[in-house]
């Protein structure tokens, strides 16, 4: 992106290219801004309906990460001639159901013929300009909150070779298809200093982006980080996707993982297909926030996974 021609400064652009945030935000009026995002990927699971749900939940998540409400979505589809059109309609049905669950509307889209199927959405959402949640702004003393367990990339890898248990797959599918709506709505009642969602760069990568942009250091506690139990076993056996190694390579200079096991490190670098929201909130609101999450009854595990400190040599330290 850095090689693209520069555009003239536009004061309406509230969140643009320069901070690698989750979505673009454009101010429409004094009290209204539009969030715009696009996301799609190739199948991560065999079941087309489930794949549609996951891809849509992932695309919608960018709007929640910015603190907004999704309003309008369009399909983006690539599909090969050799597959039955029934498969495509299942994928799109999964996507449409998620858009519905988000309270938004799906009003069209575009498809091309492509050897490998892909699916996703463009989503437009709305937010009050003063309530935009950026991926920076974490302050020393904050608590770091994560709204979904990790390990789905490793479970998917093991599932590809029929190695994952039914239980592990069931949990992984539920986590990936889960919409970040409820988590975002709970956090509407609290002070949010920074927010992002966990996707391809793994928990470590997205936490690192937040810590770096906020010029702070995160102390994360491995014992508090929720994960799908089987993912640790599969990581030990070497069922690790290539993306996890790529993430490790790019991120390891800025993090200190020396105190935790290799398998748990792999879990932190594991790319997530549609991960949870990561929040930095004032520590004094932690207990009330966790109580509110308890009441909201999410189908994923929410946990305070660490705290924010003044900037040290590394941006993230794992204990």
């Amino acid at each position: 992106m850095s090689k693209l021609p520069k555009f003239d400064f536009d004061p309406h652009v509230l969140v643009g290219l320069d901070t690698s945030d989750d979505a673009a935000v454009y101010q429409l009026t004094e009290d209204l801004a539009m969030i715009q995002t696009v996301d799609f990927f190739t199948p991560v699971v065999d079941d087309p309906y489930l794949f549609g749900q996951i891809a849509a939940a992932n695309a919608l998540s960018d709007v929640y990460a910015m603190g907004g409400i999704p309003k309008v979505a369009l399909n983006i589809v690539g599909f090969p001639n050799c597959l039955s059109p029934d498969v495509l309609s299942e994928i799109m049905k999964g996507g449409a159901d998620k858009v519905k669950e988000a309270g938004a509307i799906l009003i069209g889209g575009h498809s091309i013929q492509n050897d490998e199927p892909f699916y996703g959405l463009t989503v437009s959402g709305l937010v009050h300009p003063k309530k935009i949640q950026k991926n920076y702004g974490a302050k020393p003393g904050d608590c770091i909150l994560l709204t979904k367990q990790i390990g789905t990339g490793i479970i998917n890898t093991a599932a590809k070779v029929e190695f994952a248990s039914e239980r592990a797959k069931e949990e992984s599918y539920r986590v990936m298809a889960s919409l970040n709506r409820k988590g975002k709505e709970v956090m509407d009642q609290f002070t949010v200093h920074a927010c992002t969602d966990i996707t391809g760069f793994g928990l470590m990568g997205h936490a690192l982006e937040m810590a770096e942009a906020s010029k702070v250091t995160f102390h994360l506690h491995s014992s508090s980080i929720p994960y799908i139990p089987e993912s640790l076993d599969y990581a030990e056996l070497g069922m690790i996707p290539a993306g996890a190694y790529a993430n490790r390579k790019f991120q390891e200079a800025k993090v200190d993982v020396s105190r935790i096991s290799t398998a748990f490190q792999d879990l932190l670098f594991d790319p997530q297909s549609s991960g949870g929201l990561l929040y930095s909130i004032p520590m004094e609101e932690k207990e009330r926030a966790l109580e509110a999450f308890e009441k909201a009854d999410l189908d994923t595990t929410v946990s305070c996974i660490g705290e924010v400190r003044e900037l040290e040599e590394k941006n993230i330290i794992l204990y």
Partner: protein
Amino acid sequence: MDKNLDCKGLACPLPVVEAKKAMEEMQEGILTVLVDNETAVQNLQRLGQKFQYAVASQKLSEKEFEVRIEVKKQDGVSKEKEATCTVVFSSNKMGEGAEELGHTLIKSFVFALSNVDPLPTAMVFYNSGAYLTSQDSPVLSDLKTLEKAGVKIMTCGLCADYYKIKEKLAVGIISNMYEIVETEMQSDKIIKP
């Protein structure tokens, strides 16, 4: 008996599945696996380490890597299934009674433990036991010796947090209750000083 596998062209993590199958069929020998990408190399290294086998790898060309796993099972069972023993430290002293004596006893217990054969598989430290793996521990050097010899040393994260000594951890890893319970469940023997 040595074995060779050509896993070039197989998508990740299929080489791991093939290698695991081959390892299960082998008693002792070198398993050589050819793969065409580095992810597969790293995944095979983890697989070998999981069973505590020596692993070496070599880049033969841009698209060819060789991974050698030294399979060595004792009495026909892989090391993973060998009798396991976990030592559980729930306190930084040994037994009930005078505190000073308790501290002295735990020191000689850990020292003795570092000299037995076979060594325990894992050592778990919780509650005030967490002090034993921190910087100021009186048994630190023995624990480091044990760790070097391959004993898994795990300290309960919640406990280290509670006593505010997480940052002072000097040996082993911080673990969580799931890992601790799993280690204990899989252990054939649990010893508690």
